[in-house]
């Protein structure tokens, strides 16, 4: 049992942090967000650091690293409030493509690893919420070519992506885990309605009308779950980075801002609040480690662990985000000050791939007689 990072991981962390410090100021971030949230350029810079191929096998041009490395990167991206679809494009898309025939992998993975291709999962449907088996988009084969019809909403970086990975129903109905196909759909085959997002990035709704698609697998549910879990672990790490930095910003403010002739930091009620914030941060950090370290377990254990982690992170992100704004007072509510942007990203994260109640339901459904880190 060991929670130390390797030297390589520390170097990785330093590299990302240096890039943020030098190249991703709040001004830049704010400017990008105001201009509509485009992130392709930022993603390109991350790719230059080699991060786009972090977990892609070396055989496909990646670095072949594991979940802890991904966690280190995501935590730093969170800390830097980097608005790029990193988890989706660099972690989830490769996980989904890993189920593809070798030729399809070879066609996409090296380009993803190099940053030339931005490929994102397109999972959300209207009123499906977080259920991965509720899919209205249909797939059918017409003359040897797969065609998809349906609509996917809130697709990250929709108009900047080169392709989407789209789950579609081949057979069965809502709730069935069988009959879910996964496909690559190139952007040109879709109609995209893009828009900025609350957290300073960009997304869009895509409409597929017999859109040409490349088949990854006709039995995609398991790999979909695996990929979403990788995304969730990445979110946990990003949440930790976001919280860590937001708490630091808040602590600075409390030590500086004066009211009633003394700093905010001298009011016991606020001191206890920041202690509670610290509690949630450390519980969240602990469960982020847990999530990443459990990613390699068998599906049942993995899903349970990931949902346990997300219940904690959901609570932590909400409490830390809301209380850090409150501790700031009025300035915390403004667009020109950095804290609100951390808060908005934390808020959005809680609603991505399952909110706290959703994951609580998962934990409840998967409860065993014994529980604990090693259970």
């Amino acid at each position: 049992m060991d929670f130390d990072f390797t030297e390589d991981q520390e170097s990785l962390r330093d590299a990302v942090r240096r890039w943020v410090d030098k190249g991703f100021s709040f001004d830049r971030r704010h400017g990008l967000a105001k201009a509509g949230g485009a992130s392709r350029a930022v993603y390109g810079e991350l790719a230059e650091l080699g991060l786009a191929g972090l977990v892609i096998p070396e055989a496909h041009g990646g670095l072949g690293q594991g979940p802890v490395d991904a966690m280190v990167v995501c935590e730093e991206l969170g800390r830097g409030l980097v608005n790029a679809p990193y988890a989706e494009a660099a972690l989830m898309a490769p996980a989904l493509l890993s189920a593809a025939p070798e030729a399809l992998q070879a066609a996409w993975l090296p380009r993803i690893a190099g940053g030339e291709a931005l490929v994102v999962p397109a999972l959300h449907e209207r009123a499906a919420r977080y259920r991965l088996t509720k899919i209205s988009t249909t797939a059918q084969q017409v003359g040897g070519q797969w065609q998809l019809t349906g609509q996917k909403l809130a697709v990250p970086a929709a108009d900047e992506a080169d392709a989407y990975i789209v789950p579609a129903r081949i057979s069965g109905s809502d709730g069935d885990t069988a009959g879910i196909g996964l496909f690559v759909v190139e952007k040109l085959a879709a109609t995209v309605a893009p828009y900025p997002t609350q957290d300073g990035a960009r997304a869009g709704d895509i409409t597929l009308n017999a859109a040409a698609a490349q088949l990854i697998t006709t039995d995609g549910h398991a790999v979909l779950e695996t990929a979403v879990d990788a995304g969730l672990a990445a979110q946990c790490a990003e949440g930790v980075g976001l919280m860590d930095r937001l708490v630091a910003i808040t602590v600075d403010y409390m030590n500086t801002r004066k009211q009633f002739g003394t700093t905010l930091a001298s009011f016991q009620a606020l001191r206890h609040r920041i202690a509670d914030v610290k509690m949630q941060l450390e519980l969240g950090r602990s469960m982020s480690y847990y999530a990443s370290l459990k990613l390699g377990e068998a599906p049942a254990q993995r899903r349970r662990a990931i949902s346990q982690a997300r219940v904690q992170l959901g609570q932590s992100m909400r409490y830390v985000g809301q209380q850090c704004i409150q501790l700031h007072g009025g300035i915390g509510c403004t667009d020109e000050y950095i804290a609100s942007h951390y808060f908005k990203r934390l808020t959005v994260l809680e609603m991505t791939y399952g909110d706290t109640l959703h994951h609580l339901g998962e934990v409840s459904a998967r409860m065993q007689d014994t529980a604990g880190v090693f259970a």
Partner: protein
Amino acid sequence: MDLNFTPDELAFRHEIRAWVAENLPADIAHKVRHSLRLSREDHQRWAKILGKKSWLGWGWPKEFGGPGWNAIQKHLFEEELALACAPRVIPFGPVMVAPVIMAFGNAEQQKRFLPGIASGEVWWSQGYSEPGSGSDLASLKCKAERRGDKYIVNGQKTWTTLGQYGEWIFCLVRTSNEGKPQTGISFLLIDMKSPGITVRPIVLMDGEPEVNEVWFDNVEVPTDNLIGEENKGWTYAKHLLSHERTNIADVNRAKRELERLKRVAKAEGVYDDARFRDQIALLEVDVVALEMMVLRVLSAEKSGKQSLDVAGLLKIRGSEIQQRYAELMMLAAGPLSRAYIFEAMEAGWQGDQVAVPGDILPLASTFFNMRKTTIYGGSNEVQRNIVAQTVLGS
């Protein structure tokens, strides 16, 4: 004890309801119902409709042209307006400065200012907070120096809600540095068209320029615009706060938004999800309990028998509830609420190919906007200080 309204009270409610149904413009109600952006013109149009009926100053006594309603009538009026999705009346004129002018202004000031407030013609703003004076309001520095029949005002106000629309602003200004900070403050009415005033909107985290910074650079204000006595402004401002009783809880809006939450939850398919529904049920209990607390205060005001000092509690609980219903609506929409389309906050917006329903688009923005409610009007931390003082008597 009786939970029922009297027949007279019910008849009164009915009268208000009928009038609102007749007179509230549907386009404005539509915007309120869906949290869409209200323009200056929307606010003004509704204010003037109320003003024409002499109901913009619904809390005013008859002697000043108000309806002279009692506490329960006022509450019923507010409730009917809220439930019908009327916009909240911008309170700075009719609710905030007018009572001060009535209580402490001279006859000339009353004649000069009250009609414009009552009719909805003149847009008033509030100049209290300063960058260094938030919770600690009494530390304010914006200075007014007397020169003959004028004050020269220098300094800065901030968090001035909708100040970009303001024509007049009532300010707390420092006229003396002697004694306790509270004793050197005066209450001044300032024409916002005066030379030397600069207004800069502050964009809040939902992207809306809802508040403003207001700078005063050698602004000349006639001494005729001083309310009451110099250095007594703090007393007047406190009087005003004591007038803000139950409406601070905003329970009527909470009832309306609870209904809306249920509609959103149904549309998004989570109303029948037991976990989510329990959260609505908990909030429903919170709303009913808050309403009961409000009614207790109203009853006490009517009868004068019980004394209930719970304004701080109403502020804390009301603001928490506002944040919670906004949060639950956003959570009901889930990942779809991530979309942020500035134009979608305008009525009539048609997002060509955007599939996220228009109803959902304002939800996250509203949630973000609501973070202010536990901060403004005396932060909930300051309110807890006040409640503790009352409870502990020390």
